[in-house]
């Protein structure tokens, strides 16, 4: 146990739920962004995957909507300490999007509208662990939460779930993204409390 702060009791509650270390339970939905929220009309939106050999795969908004969708209920953990349990999303699994793609890449750099990037191992995007999500709580995803579509990778800290997702760049070697160059951890596992570079 760390240093006890005399006089501090805290507000318990949350009861039996187990949260990753250092997280607290949030019932609202805070926003973490480094800049203004890009406003992207679905008609102007497209999602791309580019491979290490330069192949390009592209889905328009209508094409994405036509792919099999999943309803996903997951807990999310933000590096700024809040966790939100049982959030409900709708989207397309990355397994579906990656299925026809020939690659031997091990990493992905995720690019967003507005220019932000974040990096993660490609294995973390496969096997039912990641989605391109366009619905939240039964409604279209709002721009400040990453709409029209964001990546959803709930087993990592939530900045890896890139908002306003535009492109996955598949890479044979890891390359740090915007957030990671600004000091956040390259991998970001909330259960190992990998918040910042060096954790």
């Amino acid at each position, binding site marked *: *146990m*760390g*240093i*006890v*702060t*005399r*006089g*501090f*009791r*805290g*507000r*318990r509650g949350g009861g039996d739920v187990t949260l990753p270390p*250092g997280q*607290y339970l*949030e*019932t*609202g*939905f*805070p*926003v*973490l*962004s*480094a*800049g*203004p*929220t*890009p*406003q992207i009309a679905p008609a102007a939106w497209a999602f791309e995957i580019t491979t290490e050999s330069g192949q390009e795969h592209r889905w328009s908004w209508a094409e994405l909507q036509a792919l099999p969708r999943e309803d996903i209920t997951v807990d999310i953990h933000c590096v*700024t*300490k809040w966790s939100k349990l049982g959030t409900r999303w709708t989207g397309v699994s990355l397994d579906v999007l990656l299925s026809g793609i020939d690659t031997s890449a091990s990493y992905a750099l995720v690019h967003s509208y*507005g*220019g932000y990037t974040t990096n993660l191992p490609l294995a973390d995007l496969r096997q039912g662990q990641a989605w391109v999500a366009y619905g939240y709580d039964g409604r279209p995803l709002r721009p*400040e939460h990453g709409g029209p579509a964001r990546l959803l990778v709930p087993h990592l800290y939530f900045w890896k779930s890139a908002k306003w997702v535009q492109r996955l760049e598949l890479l044979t070697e890891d390359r740090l993204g915007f957030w990671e*160059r*600004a*000091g956040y951890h390259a991998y970001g596992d909330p259960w190992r409390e990998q918040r*910042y570079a060096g954790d």
Partner: protein
Amino acid sequence: MAATLLLHVEGQPAGVAGQRVEIRLTAEDGYTADREYSLARTGEADRAEITVQAIDGGEVSPFLVEDIEVGVELEARGPIGGWFVWRPDQTEPVTLIAGGSGVVPLMAMIRARRAAGSKVPFRLIYSVRSREEMFYRAELRQPDPGVDVTVVHTREAPEGSPRPAGRITVADVNSGGWPPDFAPSCYVCGPTGFVESVADMLVALGHDPHRVRTERFGPTG
């Protein structure tokens, strides 16, 4: 109500203006609560200065503002943050826009400018409910040369003020900040809704979104 706290810290780097620290409070039974607070001043090796606004019903902030006693120990980690920062070697003009307690890291930037003897022109637009809720009142009433301060009152305007009380508008942002042609760096900090709307206004006025840096304090949207 708000209070400024001075934390004496061992082995703390001096920090860059705009950075924050993580505070962890631990109760006797081991229960912990962690929150982030911006540094109100940087450049002092063994202390961290924070200004905390007490949120009604909040778990941590009322304790820090009202209950904590001098000499009590707590854990702090940081400084953290590499994006929402102003460094004295930046040469472009700077527009700072604060909502409520969002003024804290922006005040750290104004103080860092002063400490470095920087001549870079700063403009601060500070949105507060009323005059009484303004942080750092004396310091902001007589700002440093080269720092312009515009206060926007949202609930209650001081007597004789030409601007009636009301939420910040595009006109406030336009006249209180630098025009887009000057390519200023813009720093916007405050509650989420405030930051969302001000950042949208800056983009609508023609500012390059990459020059608009934001920090959102909550609450939720």
